[in-house]
């Protein structure tokens, strides 16, 4: 009886400590992407990206709805969702990774996040250089990186090859607050 009781209390403490201080959530993360060509510039912003970071394990997860990307032109929005990323089949883009060598106490640091990016049903390992700011133990993560459209099996018809850049710049900014389940 004593053994069971002891292990149960240990379990209780383990669960309690693991959460509130160590997991942070960002509910209105901003993710935007840009495609610059000599013919046309395309850009879109998603202000509803979600992200959780676990500061004990230094892990991060990001998820966003492809439909939430806002374009200035309506036809671009329709083409993006219907023909390019096919958001009917792949409604979300996800990222799961690890923050390397995170120092929880430092005010501003630039560290590399290494993980798997999932878009259009294709997963790719990438490393993102991220600026991590610590404001009273609430974190702000921001940065930008490039991806190749081809890597994610997104097909661009040859007639539009000069309108859509082969490499797209993605910028992100997440502001975290404590996460209670």
């Amino acid at each position: 009886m004593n053994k069971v009781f002891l292990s149960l209390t240990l379990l209780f403490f383990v669960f309690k400590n693991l959460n509130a201080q160590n997991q942070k959530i960002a509910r209105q993360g901003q993710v935007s992407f840009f495609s610059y060509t000599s013919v046309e510039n395309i850009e879109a912003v998603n202000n509803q990206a979600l992200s959780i970071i676990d500061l004990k394990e230094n892990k991060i997860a990001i998820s966003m709805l492809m439909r939430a990307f806002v374009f200035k032109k309506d036809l671009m929005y329709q083409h993006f969702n219907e023909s390019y990323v096919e958001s009917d089949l792949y409604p979300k883009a996800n990222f799961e990774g690890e923050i390397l060598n995170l120092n929880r106490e430092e005010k501003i640091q630039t560290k590399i996040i290494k993980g798997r990016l999932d878009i259009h049903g294709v997963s790719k390992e990438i490393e993102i250089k991220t600026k991590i700011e610590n404001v009273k133990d609430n974190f702000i993560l921001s940065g930008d990186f490039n991806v190749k459209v081809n890597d994610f099996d997104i097909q661009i018809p040859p007639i539009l090859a000069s309108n859509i850049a082969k490499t797209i710049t993605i910028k992100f900014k997440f502001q975290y607050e404590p996460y209670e389940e």
Partner: protein
Amino acid sequence: MKNNYKFIFLIMFIASSINAQNLLEKLDKEFNVEEIDEIATFKTTRIGLSHSIETRKKGALQLSLYFRYWDTNAPSGQNFLADKVSTRYGLDYAFTDNFTLGIGYTNYDKLVDGYFKYQLLKQTKDSNKRWFSLTLVQTISHQELTSTIYDVYESATTSENSYAFVTQALFARKFNPNLSLQITPSFIYRNKNNENDDPTSQFAIGIGGRHRLSKHTSFVSEYNYVLNSIDSIETYNTFMVGVNWEVRNFIFQFHLTNARSFAEDLFLTKTTNNFNFRDPNLHFGFNTTYVIQTKRRK
């Protein structure tokens, strides 16, 4: 005693690892489940002949050129490709996301037409909240009909204004990413007829659909059935098959149809030839539309 410690460590290890793997699953729970409207039911604002339920977003201006080519009964013609061509020049502007106003001029029929289009309901995706999309269209068209009375001594030409009003309710549903269908009941009212007993109010019901062939092209078809057709001349119901191609800001529509006019009141009720492959009944239509976004939608 040693066993105890091992057991405790095992429990702690399991507890900590279970928590760390569920980050993405936790995110999944955080998404608020709000209803998302279905987009791109048709991708074009006309199926081919009739309007589709789509309206452009606020500030979108559509410039359109519609062509219809057909041959006449003449035994030998020297015209290149086709004997007759009818062109409609059109302009559509979206005042809000749901309300569009359009005007157009057809040179062959010498007809000016204008329409208001309001999207009342949008189908929701993945839920049974709204099963279909509903758009209301009101078309007004004006033609100047000239008639000449030949008398022994002199001939008098009179011209009168002929107006026609067409009210349509478009019901459409996107069944899956590849197939959308639309039903179009219409009410046509003409202010005068050419001194005969034709009904001035007519009802028609149309059915149209779009099947996606590839990411940017789709196959469309449409059939319009008139419930009370006019008696003075023989008319037929209109049928259309075609292909739509969307590229960036351009939309191209190619179709075969037996309708000669672009205005709803004319092509629904006054199409005088049937759809078959005998000359001169095969009419070829080509529509081009260019969409310009005029202001920032913020």
